[in-house]
């Protein structure tokens, strides 16, 4: 396992070198995205509200920001669960040319396949540490805040060594949690045994 300081926009080489379990710190331009925004774009067929340019780091998050002295002040930040965006995952990677998604809970098989095809990775935090992160983030702007509400609106962020995050989906089709699953599956059998749950146990079917 290695640690990488990546600077966006990310190149193909920046992400193909990453393996599950590697630690990543992010710098450069990013934007936030949640389901209301993806429904607005993909299901309601609205125009993307800003020029993405080469901004290819997407963060699944709903920040808290307040207006102070005519500027946005970031109050709190934590990546949020990505699995609920699975419906739009592959399409987001393809149409928005994403190289990296930062979130939580990984994503499903369709997104994993698109990550493999288009060279994109998913990373997650291994802590809940908003206060160790907020000084690494500057707010550049926000779009559709009135229309979608503050947390569902896409925010443009400038990152400075934001991390640490762990690579949980690489672009070779590997998922970190599949590895944890194997350990947990073995330990589960031991837990059953310690708790007196027989290997032959079956629930009585009530309905």
């Amino acid at each position, binding site marked *: 396992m290695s640690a990488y300081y990546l600077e966006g926009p990310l190149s193909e080489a920046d992400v193909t070198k990453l393996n599950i379990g590697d630690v990543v710190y992010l710098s450069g331009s990013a934007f936030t995205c949640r*389901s*209301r925004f993806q*429904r607005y774009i993909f299901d309601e067929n609205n125009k993307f509200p800003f020029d993405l340019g080469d901004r290819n780091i997407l963060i699944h*998050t*709903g*920040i*808290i*920001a*307040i207006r102070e002295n005519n500027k946005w002040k970031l*109050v*709190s*930040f*934590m990546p*949020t*669960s990505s*699995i*609920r965006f699975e419906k739009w995952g592959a399409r987001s990677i393809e149409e928005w040319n994403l190289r990296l998604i930062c979130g*939580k*809970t*990984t994503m499903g098989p369709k997104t994993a396949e698109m990550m493999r095809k288009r060279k994109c990775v998913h990373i*997650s*935090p*291994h*802590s*809940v*540490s*908003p*206060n*160790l992160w907020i000084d690494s983030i500057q707010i550049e702007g926000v779009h559709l805040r009135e229309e*979608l*509400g*503050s*947390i*569902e609106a896409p925010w443009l962020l400038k990152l400075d060594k934001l991390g*640490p995050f*762990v690579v*949980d989906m690489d672009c070779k089709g590997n998922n*970190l*949690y599949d*590895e*944890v*699953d194997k*350990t*947990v599956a073995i*330990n*589960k059998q*031991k*837990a*059953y045994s*310690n*708790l*007196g*749950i*027989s290997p032959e*146990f079956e*629930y*009585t079917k*009530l*309905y």
Partner: protein
Amino acid sequence: MIKREVYEAAIFETIKKGATIISKDVKAAFEKAIEKETSVSAKEGLTDTLRSMELSEVKQNPLCPDTGWPIFYIKAGNESRIEGGFVGIEEAIRDAVARATKLGYLRATMKHPLTGDDPGNNIGMNIPYFTYKFVPGNSIEITYVAKGGGSECFGGTRHRIVAFADGLAGIKKCVIDNYIASTRAGAICPPSVLGIGIGGTANVAANLAKEAACLRTIGSKNPEPAFAKLEEELYDAINRLGIGIMGIGGDTSVLAVHIEYAHTHIAGIAVATSSNCMVARRAACRINDDNSVIQLDSPNWFGGR
């Protein structure tokens, strides 16, 4: 008579405290977990989380931006006298939630379920949600719970009707399987506080599970030995599964296991599980008839545990 201006101020302080200050029992559970953790990554995750939570108190900002559903538990003294009555208390809670949202202590998370429309202040149909318990005395106790979406939406709340014939083995298997499924890839932000409700109708079991997860003091024991033993067995078993903080693998997979129960029809035993995420945000205060206010370390919902 408890005055409106007193409970208005106390409620706002309690919400602010719940969102921004780590509870003493949560802090102690983290310190214990960090000490015994052998995985380097998991130890780093636990240490970073504790450091961030300690900074929230200094910066007066949320422990986590997902302040979730604003849920209130009110222990109402049977002889309490309140200016404006309990309707006044509920009005004050709604006003305080809106104010705390505007000031950035809470995130405007509550949306219309069909349209996704954002009232912007966390106030809407049946939200905030209130649960009452009536007790002897003339004081009231109000607990605020910030119930985050991670621990609620991604498998943290489940139930199964277990046949009486399947006994303890059925109950234990249900709990272990539920917990493993909901912690995969860090879904419910483990190490969580796991609440288990056994018995009653399914909704009673689910309510008891949520109260056990959010309101019990971490590490407290059910006073009945059979349930205390079950809590201990499940706590030990889950902490040997290797799930770890945010599901990355590690020694601490659950901060506590709390069980509450209700008598039930034994045709089928409702077993519900509910989890609170690792930051386990809640705060409580007691307001006395003489208008003195005491901020409590723990909700005291189950009287002493």
